[in-house]
């Protein structure tokens, strides 16, 4: 019985990674090109933007909120950043502008949600339309071209490793550390789990929520720079719907919509599961319509598997406790 307990604990903790390994194995069997260095590098590079957004969604969902404006704010930050670079020639300045713009938008989100108690869904939905409109207004709906050296962010490489992957790796480490080893990280889980209790235990919930949105802003800003430099254009209507992809990756990776649950590695795994799926279907030439159906089905399956493997733990615990209770009663009697 103790052995069964251990096995279920492994399943519960690592279930999503088991899904990921399973996917990688299947994909490598379906196409010999899947496990090549070139292809895996491609997949990682394609996933960088989406995964960074997914981290932002993850930390927000853990603390009981979410962000529907990520794609639009990414576009706004991106086009302003590109424009700044074209005007000044400063790569660092352009990078910082993207972060600044995204942080400002997210601070507005934070004010609406924290000070005015607007539901995060509505507040970020409003920001989604406002930011998109602003991006289109600024560019008059046209793409900004001739980016020059700006592309180094998304198309360059350091020691042979593409820059988007380096950004992703560094950000993954930072977010991991934030969630696991800082008081802020712990307070996110607390607030998401039970906001009243967190207030009661002395957590400055308002301040934490502001900080979370600022972090999300930084992530979205960086994603904006990577996106625009990858496509070599300032696209005001780019990244439409990317917030949904970020949300999906976070949820598939084990983040719970009810708050208080989620891990960095899980989100990373979730993102790679979806990304590998897209990749293998392109490599094997699966019809576009079939791709959509398959994608939806696999996402649903991955999440159901994940939830079931977690609930098994709960039911086993109850059984064990019951039995222990019975034994206790026997001894006492």
């Amino acid at each position, binding site marked *: 019985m103790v052995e069964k307990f251990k096995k279920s604990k492994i399943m519960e903790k690592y279930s999503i990674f088991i899904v990921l390994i399973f996917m990688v194995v299947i994909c490598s069997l379906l196409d010999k090109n899947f496990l090549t260095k070139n292809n895996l590098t491609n997949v990682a590079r394609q996933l960088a933007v989406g995964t960074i957004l997914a981290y932002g969604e993850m930390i927000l969902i853990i603390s009981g909120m979410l962000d529907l404006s990520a794609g639009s704010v990414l576009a706004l930050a991106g086009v302003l950043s590109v424009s700044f670079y074209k005007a000044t020639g400063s790569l660092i300045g352009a990078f910082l502008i993207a972060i600044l713009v995204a942080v400002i938008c997210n601070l507005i989100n934070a004010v609406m949600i924290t000070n005015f108690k607007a*539901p995060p869904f509505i*507040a970020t939905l409003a920001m989604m339309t406002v930011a*998109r409109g602003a991006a289109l207004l600024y560019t008059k*709906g046209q793409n900004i071209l001739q980016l020059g050296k700006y592309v180094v962010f998304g198309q360059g490489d350091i020691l042979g490793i593409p820059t988007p992957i380096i950004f992703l790796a560094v950000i993954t480490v930072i977010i991991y550390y934030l969630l696991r080893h800082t008081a802020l990280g712990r307070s996110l889980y607390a607030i998401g789990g039970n906001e009243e209790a967190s207030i009661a235990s002395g957590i400055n919930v308002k301040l934490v929520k502001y900080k979370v949105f600022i972090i999300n802003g930084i992530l979205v800003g960086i994603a904006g720079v990577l996106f625009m430099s990858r*496509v070599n254009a300032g696209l005001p209507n780019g990244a439409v719907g990317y917030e949904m992809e970020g949300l999906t990756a976070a949820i598939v990776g084990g983040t719970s919509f009810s708050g208080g649950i989620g891990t960095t590695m899980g989100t990373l795994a979730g993102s790679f599961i979806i990304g590998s799926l897209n990749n293998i279907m*392109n490599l094997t030439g699966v019809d*576009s319509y079939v791709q959509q159906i398959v994608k939806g089905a696999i996402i649903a399956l991955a999440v159901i598997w994940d939830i079931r493997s977690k609930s098994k733990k709960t039911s086993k615990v109850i059984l064990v406790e019951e039995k222990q209770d019975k034994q206790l009663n026997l001894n006492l009697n």
Partner: protein
Amino acid sequence: MKKRLIAMGLTAIMAMSLLVGCGSGGSNNTSSETPAKDETKKSGYRVAYIARAQSDSFAAWLANEIMAEAGEYDDITLDVFDGQADDEKENTAIENAISSKYDAIIVQPNNGEAQRPYVEKVVQNGIIAITTNARIDGIEGASSVDADPYKQAAVNATLALEQIPENARVVVLNGPSGNFHADERRKAWQAEFFDKRPDVKIVAEDFANWNKDEAMALMEDWVIAHGEIDAIISMNDNMAAGALEVVAGKPGYEDIFVYGVDGTAEALLLIQEGKMTATCLQSAIDLSELILDTAHRLLTGEEKQIDTDIAAPLITKDNVDEYIKIYKERGLITE
């Protein structure tokens, strides 16, 4: 209590602004009812332009050019409404324009069949109706101005017939499924090229929905899956540019042939640099001039009904410079 009221008030204002934004559409004038800056014009004709969407760059360019062109006419006041790529919203915008009693309504359909009954309503209400990009065929009493998407692709396909090497391996990038222009262009490529060159193999084909980033992601995977690719055949320039982004200058792809449609600034620059082979110009400038000219003739009663097309010129390295010059003059290309 106070906070609740403020929160409710703010939410209500946001919701209202969303509705207002959706309903009347994004007119570039400050108000859609009484455009302030046009009051100084002589009382003339009021024209409504219902754009399919102002967020796709061609539609946005066309809207901008139509507004600029309308400024050249003393007796025309133009208001632009945004269908936001949504049939419901576009149809509502058409109905609103009818109620506002415009003298002429120009419709750029999102989906021809969805807008058909509403354009018919325009005619029934005695208002001049013009459909454009893409025209809606066969509406009694309505006029149309368009470019012929079949021709736009055919000029590229004819060039490709002589340029693409024997037994070539090509990839095809399509526009949104069911989109009239996307379908017609693909038809042209099939009839004018693929049917005539059975030796050419399509190693991969997919929808990139006119988008650069989608085309990029597809091409990255296709390069891995298929290695040698001799040509990129794209139904528009954005997608061609996206695919080109992946392979331009990379060893083994120096001689890749790339074909698109639209003649965007980006494509012209790529052709000038020798990276892209050819495109067909879909000039929003020409289109807007023809639209306003057609509208004016109908408004003044000079003609009762007009169906007309703009040209579909092929742009290659040989003539790209003159088109870049035009773009520079219009400020669409800087430096």
